[in-house]
Every structure is written in structure tokens, then in C-alpha cells.
């Protein structure tokens, strides 16, 4: 009896390996947090001092070496909102088609491959496409509309892929139960599939917001301006934007006080985090309501 639970050499080795693996993976996770902490820490330390109500709500002055960031802040809100308005309905509709309606054949697979490849296209290529398509061909000029549509096309794959994944995470048995009682495909989607995929879809939208607000290249040539002394009045106006403004004050304008670019970056990140946490809160609320 005494030897029954005695540790063999093999047991000992398994235990050691298990401990090592766990420590290694934990270190990797910590490694991941370090850059985030450093970035946030540096931004708050170096740029936190400049943040004030005035900084957020006044125009840049003295050749952009002083003053606030209001036109850029508002411009980013414009760009992100219009881009979402364009890409979310299109992306969700396409994802529903691909996940729920499209037959599994070579053309569907080709479309899926194309979407994945679209996600891999460099943003500067999207920018040049946007210039050719929206600015010149459709004649929208350099405007919020052109820039937002460019951003929308760039982020469509994110919305489509994440929506499709969350639709497919809904068990097929739920659909079959609905079809069996005489529901059409759309009724099943509307009543059972979508309500249970909505948290996943929101995750895709959150990702899109984050990415859209930070992108610089696609908006540089299509609608974002270096400096504008007025606010955009509609989607056919040009606008300033946070990301481009950050690029400009960090590299293009001489004599900018050090804290200014850090402050701009801090506001940009704070915007993204704020939108993310709102969406995460909403997701948690929805997730608490629905479970299987």
C-alpha cells in the first residue's frame, strides 16, 4: 500500500515539465502587457500635463505649436462615424449571406479567400485606391466621404470575418429546430441566430472603431487636411483628424513643445479606450441576458 502513491521518475518529470510550461506561458503573457504599460505610462507622464478642457475644445494656434486639438478630435469622430455607417450594414449583410445562405462551393470559397486577402492589403494601397475611386472617379473630392469610404473598405474584412465567426458559433441545431417548425431561413436568423451572435458582432465593430480612428495613410490623400481654420460642415468637406494631426505635430512642424504630440496621442488612445469600454459594457449586459 505504501508504494501505491509513491512518485515514480516519470511522475516527477511530468510534474516538472508541467510547471516549466506554465511559467513560460505566464511570462509570455506578462511580456505582452509590458509594452502596453510602457506606452500608456509614457503618454500619461509626458503628455498628461497638457490635457485640459481648453486643449480638447480649442483650435491649434501659433502654426500648430500651441493651442488645442478640437478640429482634429471632431474630425476623427466624423470619419469614424461615417465609416461605420457604411461598413457595418454592408459587412453584416455580407457575413449573414456568407454564413447562412451561400452554398458551400468554389465561388463561396473564392469570395472568402478574397475577403481574407483584402484584410492583408497594406493601408497605403487602400489610400491610393480611395484616391482613384472616390476622390477622382466618383468625384467626391478630398472629403470626409472619400476618406470614410476608404476606411470602410479597409475595415470591411474585419467586420465580415468577425460577424461570420460569431454567426457560425451559434449551434446549427438551433436553426434546424426553427426550420423544422416551418420558419424560413430569415425567420430563424432574425429570431434565434442574430440575437445570439450580437456580442460577437459587436466585438468586430469595436475592433473596427479602434483601427479606423488610428489609421493615417488612407485618409491622408482622401480627405484629411494638414490644418483647417474651420470645422467641417458636412461629409463633402475636408477635415482634420487626430491620427494625421499626431503625425504632423510630431514630424512636420518645427518648434512644437515636446508635450504636445504626447498629449495628442494620449487623447487618441483615450478616445479608443472609451469607445471600447462602452462597447464592452454593452456586450457584458447582452451576454448576461442570453445564455445557452
Amino acid at each position, binding site marked *: 500500500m505504501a508504494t501505491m502513491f509513491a512518485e515514480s521518475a516519470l511522475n516527477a518529470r511530468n510534474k516538472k515539465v508541467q510547471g516549466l510550461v506554465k511559467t513560460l506561458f505566464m511570462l509570455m503573457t506578462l511580456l505582452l502587457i509590458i509594452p502596453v504599460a510602457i506606452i500608456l505610462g509614457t503618454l500619461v507622464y509626458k503628455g498628461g500635463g497638457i490635457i485640459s478642457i481648453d486643449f480638447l475644445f480649442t483650435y491649434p494656434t501659433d502654426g500648430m505649436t500651441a493651442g488645442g486639438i478640437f478640429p482634429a478630435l471632431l474630425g476623427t469622430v466624423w470619419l469614424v462615424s461615417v465609416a461605420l455607417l457604411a461598413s457595418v450594414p454592408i459587412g453584416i449583410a455580407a457575413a449573414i449571406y456568407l454564413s447562412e445562405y451561400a*452554398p458551400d462551393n468554389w465561388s463561396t470559397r473564392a469570395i472568402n479567400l478574397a475577403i481574407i486577402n483584402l484584410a492583408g492589403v497594406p493601408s497605403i494601397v487602400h489610400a491610393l485606391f480611395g484616391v482613384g475611386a472616390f476622390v477622382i472617379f466618383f468625384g467626391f473630392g478630398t472629403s470626409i466621404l472619400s476618406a470614410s469610404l476608404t476606411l470602410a473598405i479597409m475595415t470591411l474584412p474585419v467586420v465580415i470575418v468577425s460577424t461570420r465567426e460569431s454567426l457560425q458559433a451559434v449551434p446549427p*441545431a*438551433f436553426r434546424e429546430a426553427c*426550420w423544422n*417548425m416551418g420558419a424560413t431561413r430569415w425567420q430563424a436568423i432574425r*429570431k434565434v441566430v442574430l440575437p445570439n451572435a450580437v456580442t460577437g458582432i459587436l466585438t468586430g465593430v469595436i475592433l473596427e472603431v479602434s483601427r479606423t480612428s488610428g489609421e493615417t495613410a488612407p485618409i491622408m490623400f482622401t480627405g484629411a487636411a494638414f490644418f483647417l481654420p474651420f470645422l467641417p460642415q458636412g461629409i463633402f468637406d475636408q477635415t482634420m483628424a487626430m491620427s494625421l494631426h499626431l503625425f504632423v505635430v510630431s514630424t512636420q512642424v518645427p518648434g512644437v513643445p515636446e508635450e504636445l504630440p504626447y498629449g495628442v496621442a494620449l487623447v487618441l488612445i483615450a478616445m479608443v479606450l472609451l469607445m471600447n469600454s462602452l462597447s464592452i459594457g454593452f456586450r457584458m449586459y447582452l451576454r448576461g441576458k442570453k*445564455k445557452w
Partner: protein
Amino acid sequence: MVTANAQPATSAGGDARAVKLSVRNLSIAYSGTPALSGVNLEVRENEIFGIIGPANSGKTSFLKALNRMNDFEVGMQVQGEVLFNGRNVNTLKNVYALRSRIGVVFPLPVGLPMTIYENVALSPRLRGIKEKRQLDEIVERCLYRAALWDEVKDRLNSLGSLLSGGQQQRLTIARALSQDPEILFLDEFSIAVDPVTTMRIEDVLKDLREEMTIVLVTNLVQQARRLADRTAFFLQGECVEIGETEDLFTGKATDQRTIDYIEGRFG
């Protein structure tokens, strides 16, 4: 409307009851591999028609072909005729009306991720019933007839998926009843249900026979004996024998394979 076009069915075998479902030379294949071949049978009104047979004998495929669920299966080919109230289901335009007249209960309970109330109210809502009072009445009646009402009447607004396995299966039966079906398909309903609940559900089915036709696919030979008026034995894609259940179980089966299967002397 399917019933509107119903023809007076000619009854077979001297039975006075009308034929509800008539299956003629039905064959099913999956991408060319046969799963069921040449099945001929008739299900009569207000009977419990049992289908027994080991796994992979084509029982579930058979049910799918009856309510056109094969439309959703890529590569599933169905040949032959299925007549529902005399109408060929394969030429039906309104296949949704057909499915809504047939309630289906699956082997594993599929509690939809919504409240108990919504689970049962879903089908009536799909039919366009909006009035709260009417929905309340349907939900209570169906849950009651599925022998679940007493256990859930105080928590109709909690999630159906939080119920126990046996309760969930009764919930799916209530959901099937909420379709106000003419036929009820049960596909091995007791596979994940405890014996006590199984007996309760069997009692429910005996009562339901008065109002609807039931096709009971089961892997429990004794369950078919307890419930079915007539029973068919499926084996490896073939309908070996159809007979009065009592005859099959009292040694009057004609095929040796049926006798072996019923007596548990198989393979």
C-alpha cells in the same frame, strides 16, 4: 393550405382510419451512397407508428425526407413519393406550411436560447399570433400537455436552457405541440432522458394519440412495444418488415432478422 386539398384517402389493409402519410418507393442517398432504399409504408391517422432499428439504418434520414428537411442537406438525394394528406410533398410550393404541420422532437433536447415562455411562443409568433392573452393560453396549454407546466409555471421567464435534460425534452415537446401539428415526429426522444421522465413522456404520447398522428423512431425495442400500434423495422437502409406491434412481439414476425433484433440476438 395542405388540408384544403386533401383527398379522401383510400385505406389500406382493411383499416378504417384514413391514411395520413403515404410513402411510396422512397430511396435516400448521400452524395451517391445509398442510405435508404425502396421504402413503402403508410401511416394512418391517430396511430403511433413505431420505427425500430439499429444505428445507421436510415431512420433519421427517413424522417427528414418526410418534412422536406432534406432541402437543407447538401448532397442528400431523395427519390420516390411522400404523400401528406394525399399531397405529394416534393411538389409542394409552400413547404413552410408542411413543416409547420409536423412537430419534431430530436434525440438531444434543443432548448432554444430564450425563456421558457418564448420557446413555446415562438411557433405561434411565427404564424403571426401577437396577442398576449392568446399566446399565454397556448403556452400554458402546451406546457400542461407536455407534463411540464407544474414544474415551470413560476419561472416562465427564466432561460429554457437552464432546465434539466428531461425538462428540456418536455419543453421541446411543448414547443412541437405549440405548432398545433397534425403529425408529431419523435426521433429517439428518450436517449438523454431519465427513465422516470421517459415514462411521463410516454403517458403524454398515449394521450396525444387521440388528437394527432405520431411517428416514433426509437432504439428501445420495448418502447415501441409499449407505445406503437404498428411498427416498422429498418435495417441497413432497408425496411425489413411492417406489422402490428403486437404481432411482431408475439413471435408472428415473418422475417428472421426482425425476430432476432426484437429478441436481442443481433450481430
